[in-house]
């Protein structure tokens, strides 16, 4: 149990045994420069440990007591880590570097004194460092800052909210080869600025006797805070500069000057900055500020028009206000429409059309929808637009003219009114009015809670083959019926046809009677009707009237008609039997053969 406590104690004390070694150093890089060049003041905080990498405490500022006459700017930090193995032992180190650009106003020696930096609870002593600034040789080449620099022409004073255009220009001396633009940054807390575009305008300029290729980016700037506001732009780029030994102000290398020194340059990545600028941002004057002012700053004019000169009650008309000119269009809101009982209005739609690439010039249109409520000669509501002119330092108010409109009474019915009535007798309704009409907006927000059966509106019939087939069948049936009717009409008008038809009918009738007589064994009736049936049958077949013809005539006609001989024989035999029974007193029985004979005859006829 005791050993556990010892181990725990040792474990708790372990972090105390692991301490990183912290060292700090300061220097100028390079320690000697020519006048006009820049050097870097670098403070390095290094932590070294053999037991593993340590976490650094981020240093955000240096308590430099005074810069010794130097101009220090563009502070930044960087960090690096390193692991090394020495005699089999690993050593981990983390270096945090704080870098400031230093520029000297004149030649001489400049000192930044020693001071204390508090880091991880320790007081670290930053050593004193000295920068030697030597006179520039007349034959010395241009400094880096003279070869490549960033410039922005900015005004000294602006009004808050005033949007201006300025050009950010990167000057690149003709001997410098720009190989890449890496990053753009700005220090402009009191402003809003536009971003630089991917395409820059390229031109050539002479500046201080040197020829430069200039990349120009048009940008906008709008102050958002009053007072003195700093603004600075930074570009990180990669360029190939002509060979220069920056450690030797006389442009000589320790090994003597090479004939290639000015020909082959070195490619390096660095940052260029505009000169630190301060703009005095003024507040807008409160005196004489119009009520209709809503933040527009610039130079504007307005145009107001209506899409019609006459209208009807309840039918909307459009009133358009167009603001043209230059200024901060994005801050221009729709002017308020004064309320008038004879008009009902809605929030306007706006549309902006820029005439330049930055949107500083152009026109912004507001379309108001107005609905006249009463007929008559009405005046459209007047619109007021105010802006501040920074050049004149005064407010300008523009008012629309009073546009008149002739409104006729509409023939449309009024909207349905949704009413609620109280339950019970209405005897006291003179005191209480429980009927309330919903406004249009309230009606538009009301749902329908009861789905009702809807009619089928989707046209399907043209895709319905059954429909087409059905009506095609009907059409064909009509055609067939027409043909049938025509045939019937033709036949009816033919006397021969009528006779034949009548005979056929009479023949069938007589045959039926003969069959009846056969079943009732009435031989007289059988033979009588059989003869009538045969005569009428021949009449129907031949078309001639043989209703009273004798057997000779019948057979003669049948022979002419090229009827079967067997049929003629059957008819002769039947007629002989019939005549013999009826007129000869021959007692003839109704045999099956006789009946079959009659059947054969009638079938053939």
């Amino acid at each position, binding site marked *: 149990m005791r050993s556990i406590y010892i181990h725990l104690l040792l474990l708790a004390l372990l972090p105390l045994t692991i301490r990183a070694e912290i060292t700090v150093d300061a220097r100028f890089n390079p320690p000697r420069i020519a006048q006009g060049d820049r050097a870097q003041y670098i403070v390095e905080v290094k932590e070294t440990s053999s037991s593993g990498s340590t976490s650094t405490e981020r240093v955000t500022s240096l308590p430099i007591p005074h810069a010794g006459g130097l101009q220090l700017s563009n502070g930044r930090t960087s960090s690096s880590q390193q692991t090394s193995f020495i005699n089999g032992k690993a050593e981990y180190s983390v270096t945090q570097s704080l870098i400031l650009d230093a520029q000297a106003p004149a030649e001489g020696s400049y000192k930044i004194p020693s001071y204390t930096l508090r880091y991880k609870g320790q007081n670290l002593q930053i050593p004193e460092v000295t920068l030697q600034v030597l006179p520039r040789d007349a034959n010395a080449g241009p400094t880096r800052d003279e070869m490549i620099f960033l410039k922005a022409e900015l005004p000294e004073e602006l009004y808050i909210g005033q949007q201006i255009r300025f050009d950010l220009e990167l000057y690149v001396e003709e001997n410098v080869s720009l190989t890449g633009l890496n990053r753009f940054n700005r220090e402009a807390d009191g402003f809003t600025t536009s971003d630089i575009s991917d395409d820059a305008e390229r031109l050539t300029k002479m500046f201080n006797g040197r020829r430069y290729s200039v990349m120009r980016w048009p940008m906008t700037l709008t102050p958002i805070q009053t007072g003195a506001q700093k603004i600075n732009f930074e570009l990180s780029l990669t360029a190939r500069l002509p060979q220069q030994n920056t450690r030797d102000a006389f442009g000589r290398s320790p090994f003597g000057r090479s004939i290639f020194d000015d020909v082959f340059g070195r490619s390096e990545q660095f940052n260029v900055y505009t000169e630190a600028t301060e703009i005095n941002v003024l507040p807008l004057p409160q005196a004489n500020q119009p009520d209709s002012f809503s933040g527009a700053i610039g130079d504007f004019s307005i145009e107001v028009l209506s899409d019609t000169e006459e209208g009807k009650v309840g*039918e909307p008309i459009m009133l358009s206000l167009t603001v043209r000119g230059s200024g901060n269009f994005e801050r221009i809101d729709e002017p308020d429409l004064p309320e008038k009982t004879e008009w009902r209005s809605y929030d306007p739609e706006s549309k902006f059309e820029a005439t330049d690439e930055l949107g500083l010039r152009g026109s912004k249109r507001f*379309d108001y*929808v107005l609905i006249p409520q009463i007929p008559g000669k009405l005046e459209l509501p007047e619109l007021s637009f105010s802006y501040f002119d920074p050049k004149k330092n005064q407010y300008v108010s523009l008012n629309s003219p009073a546009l008149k409109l002739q409104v006729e009474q509409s023939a449309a019915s009024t909207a349905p009114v949704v009413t609620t009535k109280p339950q019970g007798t209405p005897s006291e309704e003179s005191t209480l009015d429980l009927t309330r009409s919903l406004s249009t907006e309230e009606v*538009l927000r009301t749902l329908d*809670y009861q789905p009702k059966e809807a009619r089928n509106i989707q046209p399907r019939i043209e895709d319905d083959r059954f429909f087409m087939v059905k009506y095609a069948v009907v059409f064909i049936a009509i055609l067939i019926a027409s043909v049938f009717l025509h045939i019937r009409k033709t036949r009816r008008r033919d006397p021969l046809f009528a006779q034949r038809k009548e005979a056929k009918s009479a023949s069938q009738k007589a045959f039926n009677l003969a069959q009846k007589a056969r079943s009732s064994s009435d031989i007289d009736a059988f033979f009588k009707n059989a003869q009538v049936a045969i005569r009428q049958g021949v009449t129907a077949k031949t078309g001639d009237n043989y209703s009273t013809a004798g057997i000779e005539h019948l057979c003669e006609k049948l022979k002419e008609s090229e009827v079967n001989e067997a049929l003629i024989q059957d008819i002769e035999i039947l007629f002989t039997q019939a005549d013999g029974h009826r007129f000869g007193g021959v007692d003839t029985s109704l045999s099956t053969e006789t009946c079959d004979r009659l059947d054969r005859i009638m079938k053939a006829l």
Partner: protein
Amino acid sequence: MKKSLFITLLFTIFLNLSFGSFNRGLSLYEDGKYEQAIDAFKRELIKEETGAVRHNLGVTYFQKGNSGEAIWNMERATLLNPEEEAYHYKLDALREQVGLPPIRLDWKERITSILHHDDWMRVFAYFALTTIAAFMFPIAAGWKHNTRVRILMAVCCLGTILSGLAFSHVRTLLDRGVSLSQTPTELHAAPAEAAPQTGLIRTGERALILEEHNDFLFLKTEGGAEGWLPSTYFRKFY
């Protein structure tokens, strides 16, 4: 027992899915969850399209600020249930919101709206076939052209002509729709975005399709403007 429980559960779920979407849409709308209410109403459309569902979709889209969709759904509601006065009123109110005049049906539309497109086609077919029969049968059968026959022929002819005209008018209305874009959109002189502008179509404005080419439609708006519009900005009623 387990089987019957499972079947009952399945049936209940099915019932909720099929009959609950409308009511769920109503409650979601009342809770202000418009996007979900739209989804619920759209699920109801799969089961059955009614004027109430389309109306409620229109109201919900209006709440969301999508005037184009609101007007299209309300137009559809008036077609599905033309007897509902409230739908017509709300359609006019929505149109008023975007600066369009209320809808005024001309006499042709009033008459043709009595019947549906398919019904007009049936009526026309009946009259046409009856006219054919009325002309052909007397001639074929040799019937005398007495007064009754003449009246029948006249009525059939007139019916065929009128129903044919009505059907033809209703047929053209199938190519009608509204603009869905949220802002007034340009009409072009040719089926290309870069073509010169010939007019403007407002949100929710009605137009008739006169021609189609690739992804463009040649429209004539109710305001009289004509021009080409990308088909994504337009939706027909049918």
